[in-house]
């Protein structure tokens, strides 16, 4: 959370996250670039430029694979959520690694000719009508453009400027980029491999991404948020005893929005489940220091009015609610973001000691 835009809001956890990420990337590159040539001991070694290009290309693939595994892992087990926290830095780092890969390719295979290297990249191979020998470079260019767009718009300025739904849709480009990378590798380097270790790692990585996403989607489908039932224009949530102190119950509203009804010290309040930052699931968060805290990036809101504490300015919609016949009911019409709603006291509520 911030009241102004600064490049990076560093904190200890972010420093640690980036440090671990850098250790992994540097270890990969050092082992590939400087240790593996001795292990290979080729009489006529691979050109250094080609070796470097392969190292950075393979590293970018592994990074992208790990990045795409974090999302479903966090949905399967919330203990992985800290890996999601600073994933944007991971993505930006991947873009730089991919740029380095592209630079080596461009300055080696596409240089030294009578044509400009950027032009040569586009015209050297135009066999678009055949699979074997297809210009796989086109997939690499496309993936790199996607990564550049994602890196350039990764800052919270763009998140607020574009609005979270648009920003999230734009950043779903990462999946298109990954598919392009898979095609780039499949139609490129894999066509010439005699040793299939990389092929196995590549298939394993791509399968891990696909299987984890499928499994997480299945879990969501099986245990997804319940659809609220309607009663006389209000939607029914649950009984007050079903919501533990400091936690929420999420329900899917008839219009497709999700409401999170919180119990804060025996008083019920309802707010939108979508965090104003990245639409994170507020109802999966909890109340810390009297403020609802988003599980994704820790954005906080006063549950009675949906406002972030001063000096922050984020706001989410609130909902009117009532208790009828022992059932919490919510008005499906959301109030404008930041609207105060008097909390509804739970009759006879007593905190259960932990």
């Amino acid at each position, binding site marked *: 959370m911030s009241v102004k835009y600064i490049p990076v809001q560093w904190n200890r956890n972010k420093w640690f996250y980036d440090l671990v990420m850098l250790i992994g990337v540097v270890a990969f590159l050092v082992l590939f670039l400087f240790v*593996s040539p001795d292990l*290979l001991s*080729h009489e006529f070694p691979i050109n250094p430029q080609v070796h470097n290009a392969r*190292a950075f290309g*393979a590293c970018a693939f592994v990074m992208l694979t790990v990045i795409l595994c974090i999302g479903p892992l966090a949905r399967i087990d919330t203990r992985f959520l*800290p890996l999601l926290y600073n994933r944007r830095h991971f993505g930006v780092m991947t873009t730089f690694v991919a740029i380095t890969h592209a630079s080596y390719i461009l300055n080696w295979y596409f240089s030294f000719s009578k044509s400009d290297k950027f032009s040569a990249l586009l015209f050297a191979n135009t066999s678009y009508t055949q699979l074997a020998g297809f210009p796989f470079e086109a997939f690499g260019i496309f993936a790199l453009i996607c990564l550049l767009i994602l890196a350039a718009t990764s800052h919270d300025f763009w998140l607020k400027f574009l609005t979270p739904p648009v920003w999230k849709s734009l950043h779903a480009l990462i999946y298109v980029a990954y598919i392009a990378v898979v095609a780039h590798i499949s139609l490129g380097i894999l066509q010439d491999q005699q040793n299939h270790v990389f092929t196995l790692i590549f298939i394993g990585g791509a399968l891990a991404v696909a299987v984890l996403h499928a499994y997480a989607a299945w879990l969501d489908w099986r245990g997804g948020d319940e659809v609220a039932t309607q009663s006389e224009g209000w939607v029914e949530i649950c009984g007050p005893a079903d919501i533990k102190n400091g936690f929420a119950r999420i329900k899917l509203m008839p219009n497709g929005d999700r409401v999170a009804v919180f119990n804060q010290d025996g008083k019920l309040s309802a707010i939108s489940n979508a965090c104003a930052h990245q639409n994170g699931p507020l109802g999966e968060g909890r109340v*810390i220091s009297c403020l609802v805290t988003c599980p994704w990036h*820790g954005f906080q809101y006063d549950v009675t009015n949906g406002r972030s504490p001063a000096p922050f300015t984020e706001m989410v919609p609130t909902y009117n609610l009532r208790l009828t016949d022992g059932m919490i009911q919510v008005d499906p019409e959301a109030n404008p973001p930041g609207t105060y709603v008097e909390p509804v006291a739970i009759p006879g509520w007593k905190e259960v000691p932990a």
Partner: protein
Amino acid sequence: MSNQDKPFFVGYLDIPGSLRRFLVLACLVGTGIFVATGLLIGSTQDEPAASGFRFDYGRQTVTGVIELTPYPLLRVTQGNDLIKPGKTLMLSGQGKFGVDAQAMGLEGGLVEVTGIILQRGTIDMMQLAGGRRGMKMVDGDAPDMETEPLGRWKVAGEICDGKCLNGAMRPGRGLAHKACAALCLVGDVPPVFVSTQPIEGSDFMLITGPDGTRLPKAAYDHIGQFVSAEGDLERRGDMLVLKLDAETIEVIDG
């Protein structure tokens, strides 16, 4: 609803104690993935063919007769310890350039060439030094050079550029190298066919179009692919030249 039994992470707060062990394990596993993949992928790269610039030989100077196939060849008449008379050298310029401009008008003439040898198996190429040092006419009568017709052949293998194949790039063939090879051929570097089986004792042959023309552009789509093709084969010194009929190129599965 979130599970109150599970630790709750907030990025700007201290990590809950019960989550620390899990995160340390996740960090170790994540780093381990990078270490393992970096080492495994890096240490299992295929070995390129024995080929490359022979800088260790030093700059070589030999004399011979220029033949335009149309790609210029040098039939060596006065060699040295490394390059014997009777040898046929393909010629290239610096980078992805042929030496057509230098060789133009010199067909059948005696020239002295200076440059660095690129070597792969039985096939040799010389990358000429820049300027007039690379190729110059010399006095003397050029002997007649024999060309031995070897009939019509159907060959199976791969179309490459002669310079990268000879080790200017390692690896210098295959589908991943297709665009680079096409750029070399556009720059008039001599094209080469790598046969799957030796033909007349050689795995490699210079390829041209029929009737002394350049390799047809239609063949460029098949660079790096496993193909079969037909053409008239001839021997020029110790080098085979296949006058390839592009219409006979067929992609071979597998």
